[in-house]
């Protein structure tokens, strides 16, 4: 095939995915989809292997491939033009039940030529707790509707019995129906554009281009791996639920053009729902691998071939049925993301050629806070605090991380504006801003996370409730690189004042000035009623390099902007600021003392 035709087809495939994503967003009515971009669309070959990975949460790219293969196995001989299949069972391929895959075969002249697959986190899935994250769940059976594969659309006709059955099992069926229709529309657009591509260039030419594209990706990644040094690198993540501490431990070994991710040593599966299944772990390690090692390589089956994963069965990264997994995406999966990001960052930092691609861990600790109740118009409302998608950039080997700068596993993640949230829920924000001292210290500082506080406002019921889950607030998780420190940990505080207490300050501008009793929370269902307030802070990114090597003026500027405290400037960065001015002589003297203090520290062995 001539290279120009190949290149055009490659770009057209990417545009097919892009247009399908736009369709998904336009039709869906959920903030988690439209604002948080908790979504994914990709194209797959006729055998279900990944052809063109799209944007959104990248840990779905390989899991949706497995979903396609599961559908191919289950419906062999019954897959027809115009069908659409649903799959959301985590023990088959999905990440958790509320991330529903809709998968559509693409036929050309009666022959299956490709698949389109997408997901959104649906408004509700009928789990114990509203919104899909179910901290109260004891097993998969209490985590809502779950299917290892069913036919939702048969030859272009919606199966009303299946549709009604699903919607009969969820809260807010109208919103779930809209989510489902957005995915049907998305798959229809992907199919139409694929068929238009085939009509223009011919099925054989497009098929050859797709085959070549996968071979090219494999060749390019193997070549890149051979350019990188051999070795092994380790990472460790701590998770905490109700006093139970779990670990995700990773040893990544790179030998020639192969990369092995070995999670041996990770904790046994938990009784809490932060576990993840094998397919979820595989997706979890690829989420940072795609952008960090394959930023200029098409994300497809060819990238998967050089990679091996070892995830011992019965552990938190490969749990066995019926262990609960509804919190997986903000639990073990994200810890796998983080661990893989850390080891890949170390690998890149070991290379002269690729050192500038190295990064500390970005936003490492999602929080799933789903509010539920009646809104100010009397209607039902369920939805996530989208600030969890706001993230924080990890520092790079050449510069600071971006403040509230997103996350590696989802290149298009973002948060809703305050006004959208206040229009959707009966709440009012007291403040939302960058969080001081949250970015990991380093020669290059991690991007800051943020902090916010909300109170009930204009609610017909005096407020609402929320489900909170995640990996807890006990441990920093955004590890630094090469001497850079981890970003600060998350924090969740329920400030509750008895009903008869008059809340004097309804415009408080800090946690300290919100009246009431403070209670740290991180798991369960809590009220936001009456005079309650909810304070949330989320982690910053990791730093890179020795904080004592940071340019003093950069530290002074951070202090001036309120994102680094004077205390941190002095104690961690060794920078002395007199008034608003740098004292360079005192800074140099202080840094010398701090370095000398390190030398008298105990020997590591």
């Amino acid at each position, binding site marked *: 095939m001539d290279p120009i035709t190949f290149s055009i087809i490659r770009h057209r495939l990417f545009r097919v995915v892009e247009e399908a994503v736009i369709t998904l967003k336009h039709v869906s009515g959920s903030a988690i989809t439209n604002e948080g971009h908790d979504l994914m669309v990709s194209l797959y070959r006729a055998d279900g292997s990944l052809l063109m990975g799209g944007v959104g949460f990248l840990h779905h790219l390989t899991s949706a491939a497995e979903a396609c293969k599961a559908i191919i196995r289950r419906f062999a001989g019954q897959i027809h033009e115009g069908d659409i299949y649903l799959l959301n069972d985590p023990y088959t391929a999905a990440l958790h039940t509320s991330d529903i895959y809709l998968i559509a075969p693409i036929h050309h002249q009666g022959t299956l030529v490709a698949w389109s697959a997408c997901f959104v986190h649906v408004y509700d899935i009928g789990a114990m707790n509203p919104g899909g994250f179910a901290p109260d769940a004891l097993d998969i059976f209490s985590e809502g509707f779950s299917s290892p594969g069913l036919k939702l659309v048969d030859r272009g006709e919606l199966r009303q019995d299946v549709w009604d059955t699903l919607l009969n099992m969820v809260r807010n069926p109208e919103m779930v129906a809209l989510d489902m229709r957005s995915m049907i529309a998305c798959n229809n657009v992907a199919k139409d554009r694929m068929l238009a591509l085939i009509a223009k260039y011919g099925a054989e030419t497009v098929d050859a281009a797709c085959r070549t594209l996968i071979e090219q990706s494999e060749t390019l990644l193997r070549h890149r791996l051979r350019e990188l040094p051999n070795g092994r690198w380790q990472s460790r993540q701590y998770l905490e639920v109700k006093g139970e501490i779990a670990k995700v431990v990773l040893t990544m070994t790179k030998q020639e053009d192969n990369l092995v991710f070995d999670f041996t040593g990770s904790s046994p599966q938990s009784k809490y729902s932060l576990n993840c299944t094998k397919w979820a772990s595989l997706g979890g390690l690829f989420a940072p691998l795609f952008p960090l090692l394959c930023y200029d390589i098409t994300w497809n089956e060819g990238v998967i071939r050089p990679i091996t994963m070892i995830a011992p069965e019965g552990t938190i990264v490969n749990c066995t049925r019926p262990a609960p997994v509804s919190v997986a995406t903000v639990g073990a999966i994200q810890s796998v993301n983080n661990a893989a990001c850390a080891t890949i960052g170390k690998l890149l930092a070991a290379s002269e050629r690729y050192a500038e691609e190295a990064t500390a861990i970005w936003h490492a600790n999602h929080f799933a806070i789903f509010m539920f109740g009646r809104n100010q118009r009397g209607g039902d409302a369920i939805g996530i605090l989208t600030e969890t998608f706001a993230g924080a950039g990890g520092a790079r080997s050449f510069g600071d991380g971006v403040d509230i700068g997103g996350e590696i596993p989802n290149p298009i993640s973002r948060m809703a504006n305050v006004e959208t949230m206040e229009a959707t829920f009966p709440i009012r924000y007291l403040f939302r801003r960058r969080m001081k001292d949250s970015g990991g210290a380093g020669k290059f500082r991690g991007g800051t996370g943020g902090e916010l506080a909300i109170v009930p406002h204009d609610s017909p019921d005096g407020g609402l409730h929320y489900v909170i889950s995640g990996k807890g607030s006990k441990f920093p998780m955004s590890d630094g690189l090469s001497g850079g420190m*981890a970003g600060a940990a998350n924090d969740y505080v329920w400030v509750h004042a008895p009903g008869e207490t008059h809340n004097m300050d309804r415009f408080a501008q800090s946690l300290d000035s919100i009246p009431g009793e403070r209670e740290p929370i991180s798991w369960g269902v809590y009220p936001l009623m009456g005079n309650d307030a909810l304070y949330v802070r989320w982690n910053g990114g990791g730093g*890179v390099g020795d904080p004592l090597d940071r340019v003093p003026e950069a530290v002074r500027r951070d202090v001036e902007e309120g994102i680094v405290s004077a205390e941190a400037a002095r104690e961690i960065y060794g920078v002395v600021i007199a008034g608003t001015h740098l004292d360079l002589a005192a800074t140099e003297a202080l840094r010398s003392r701090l370095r000398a203090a*390190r030398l008298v520290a105990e020997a590591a062995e």
Partner: protein
Amino acid sequence: MNRRISETLELRDLEDGRKICCRGCGRPIAAAGTSWKPHAAFSAVAVATQPGAPSAVHPDVVHRRFSCPACGKLLDCETALPDDPFLDDVVSP
């Protein structure tokens, strides 16, 4: 020829063999292809005492700091509970 193995460490060929050295001052720390952290200057600081730490942070979790024994440059840092081993990163020589 010097060859970097991280932002702060590099391999150097010295009279007594290939060594992992500090990129700041050149001080040899360990033999190439081995675990270097046991040979670094070590300190641990409780995360809870650091500026910006939330009140809920685990009281035992620390930032482990591995520094060059000669110039004091911070070579690596890891978050850990006391009973866990050092993260062992080994780059092939």
